[in-house]
């Protein structure tokens, strides 16, 4: 029972264009949503997050949009650069057992072609 779904295992875009990574969730109790970037043989690196009470958060080239009614969020990267090529994980946070716990999607592998 996947609570966080990333339905596209991979995405390929041209350098300079926009990359849009999508994520769907099922649990209305999630209070934060986060995106992590992962290079091979490294741990996930925090990229950007959004509170469930917001619908947009922007940080440089990265923008996350949240549509609560559709239980959908997306990460926009513009312009895309070859160094952005990595696996991107969507994660949702829920307060449980005295601390915030993350539920991850399976990831989307982004390839940015020069």
């Amino acid at each position, binding site marked *: 029972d996947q609570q966080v779904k990333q339905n596209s295992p991979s995405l390929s875009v041209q350098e300079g264009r926009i990359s849009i990574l999508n994520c769907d969730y099922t649990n209305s109790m999630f209070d934060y949503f986060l995106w992590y970037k992962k290079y091979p043989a490294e*741990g996930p690196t925090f990229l950007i997050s959004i509170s469930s009470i917001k619908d947009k958060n922007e940080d440089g080239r990265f923008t996350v949009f949240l549509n609560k009614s559709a239980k959908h969020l997306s990460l926009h990267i513009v312009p895309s650069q070859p160094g952005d090529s990595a696996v991107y994980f969507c994660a949702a946070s829920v307060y449980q057992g005295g601390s915030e716990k993350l539920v991850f999607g399976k990831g989307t592998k982004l390839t940015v072609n020069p």
Partner: protein
Amino acid sequence: DAMVIQNPRYQVTQFGKPVTLSCSQTLNHNVMYWYQQKSSQAPKLLFHYYDKDFNNEADTPDNFQSRRPNTSFCFLDIRSPGLGDAAMYLCATSKTETQYFGPGTRLLVL
């Protein structure tokens, strides 16, 4: 730089031979987590510590144990590794909703 450190980066063990993976942090975060990640899958939470309070996930096998002797260190003990336990093991820390991950330890079981 404040960080999360995992040692070793690669660990080879034999079927049934106990193995310990270690994690340390300089962030002074009160929560530490252990995840298991298999190829092309989402990281799966095994357990976490809130300070010294241990929280086990319901589906974490008894074969997996953890120790947190102080704020900075946390250990993952696999008592009798099976072939199915070969995976990347990720340690993370947090103070709020954002978790910060170490580089992971790749475990190979022969």
